């Protein structure tokens, strides 16, 4: 039971508890807080894997911007707790078993073919930011420019959606 394994189980348990809490909470703000817990624990897992830049970006962008947007919208729309909290029949007898079957299938596939996954992990290896940026700006420069264009389109879309209706 080495130290990285203990840390992995702690963070994994935190992530799963957060995801369960997302499903089981009635108020959307509590679901949002649970999702933030999931994201922070995933950032911890990225750090454990040596991907420090990705962990920092996950917290700054996902936890510090996207989830703030969610929390803003929940506050602005004054969302309240859900009224009917029991699951519909279709969800209980159809959806839930199917989703669990999906999870089980994926997990079983990964465990069964575990030997096929390369396991060349150098312990304590950190992925340096320099290497990621070299890769980003040489091999992936075209997707990079496309994503900047995508963000521009998203900004314009959000602006158009936020306009008030013109009274004609």
């Amino acid at each position, binding site marked *: 039971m080495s130290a990285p394994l203990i840390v992995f189980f702690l963070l994994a348990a935190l992530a799963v508890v957060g995801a369960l809490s997302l499903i089981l909470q009635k*108020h959307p*703000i*509590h679901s949002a*807080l649970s999702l*933030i817990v999931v994201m922070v624990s995933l950032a911890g897992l990225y750090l454990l894997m040596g991907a*420090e*830049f990705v962990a*920092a970006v996950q*917290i*700054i962008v996902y*936890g*510090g*911007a996207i989830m*703030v947007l969610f*929390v*803003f919208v929940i*506050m*602005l729309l004054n969302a309240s707790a859900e009224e009917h909290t029991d699951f519909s029949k279709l969800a209980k007898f159809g959806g839930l078993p199917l989703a669990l079957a999906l999870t089980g299938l994926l997990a079983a596939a990964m465990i069964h073919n575990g030997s096929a996954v390369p396991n060349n992990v150098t312990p304590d290896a*950190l992925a*340096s*930011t*320099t290497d990621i940026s070299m890769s980003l700006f040489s091999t992936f420069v075209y997707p990079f420019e496309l994503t900047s264009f995508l963000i521009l389109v998203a900004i314009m879309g959000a602006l158009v959606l936020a306009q008030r209706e013109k009274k004609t």
Partner: protein
Amino acid sequence: MNSVTTFLTQDGGFWVLTFGKIALLLFIVLTVNAYLTWFERKVVALMQSRVGPHRVGPHGLLQPAADGLKFLFKEDVMPGGVDKFVYLLAPFLALTLALASLAVIPFGPKPLPPPFTFFGHQIDLWITNPDIGLLVLFAITALGVYGVALAGWASNSKYPLLGGLRSSAQMVSYELSMTMSVVGVVLMANSFSLTKIISLQDSSKWGLLSWNIFTFHGGFPQVVGFLCFFISAIAETNRVPFDLPEAESELVAGFHTEYSSFKFAMFFIAEYTSMISVSSLCAILFFGGWYSPIPDLPWLQFTHYLPSLILIPFGLWVIFDGVRYETIFGKVILPGLGTAIAGVGALLLAGVWIAPLHEVNEYIQGPFWLLSKIFFFLFFYVWARGTLPRFRYDQLMHIGWKLLLPVSIANVIITAGCVLRWGHP
């Protein structure tokens, strides 16, 4: 006993040392926070031609203790209809994040010299020094928005909700220009690590001119970057002139209206701690960190005794001031404090003749200069509070998006061009 020693010489010792450093840093920072409030009230009062706290202890020095006791003993009111979990989480989150940002700030270049190792572990003057230290600070700042937004929402009342939304919108907007204005420094240093950024501003040859704000070595003087960063940081910490969301005349008290006693104190401490953290970032990134403005030439060696030159007269003044008072705090404790301060100064000065004390004097040069710069920036914060009126909300947003963000992006482009042309051999 033997097993404890073996445990401490291996990994266990590292963890014990880190927790010890964290406890010490927390104690120091909380005390500095308390006296920062005293300092602010005194300086703002003197700028407004009045005296400030002067009743509770000599020169009002016990005022923070009195305030702390007041916060502890006040009635803890929780308004009805609040979402209890989120209401209690918000100040806790704000305080935790503000204090966590101090973990990556380096306070001195060299670890404690060999006699002072902890069972074989070197004692550095920082808690941790990751390769992405600057990104960790920005991640913590990004998460700091939640303390404000959730506090405003959980209070189940109009004014806190509006104040919280406005304040978090302001924080998110200024976060952008804050991070962009630092990219110039990162380009010149080629790393996110704070110690590496400081080591680039080594001032032994050129003194003041090698700090990032003035430098020409492989880059562009980061004056514009510094101004953008400092202004954005003032807005980020919700201080005057950007404190409309918590202004008393506008929104009662903004997002912390419904919080009383200790929970309000937690927001208070969080705000002052983030002030300290931002001031240290300014000092580290733009003003040379722990390097002195005076070059390290042989005929300027006497400037190494500047700490004692400051401490001895200050200690003597404290002694002479203390004996005037009639209370015990004034008559006994203040002169004792003064003697201690003057004694430390004299000991450092004795380094001219005694060799080990000379080593001690050399060792504290780094932390001394860093702490003086942090103090200067904190004074600047308080000075801004005493002098400037506050911005209207739309003016605030205009400055953040239409002024600071384009200027900091232009700074990045120009610095990148200069680094490409002249930097990084």
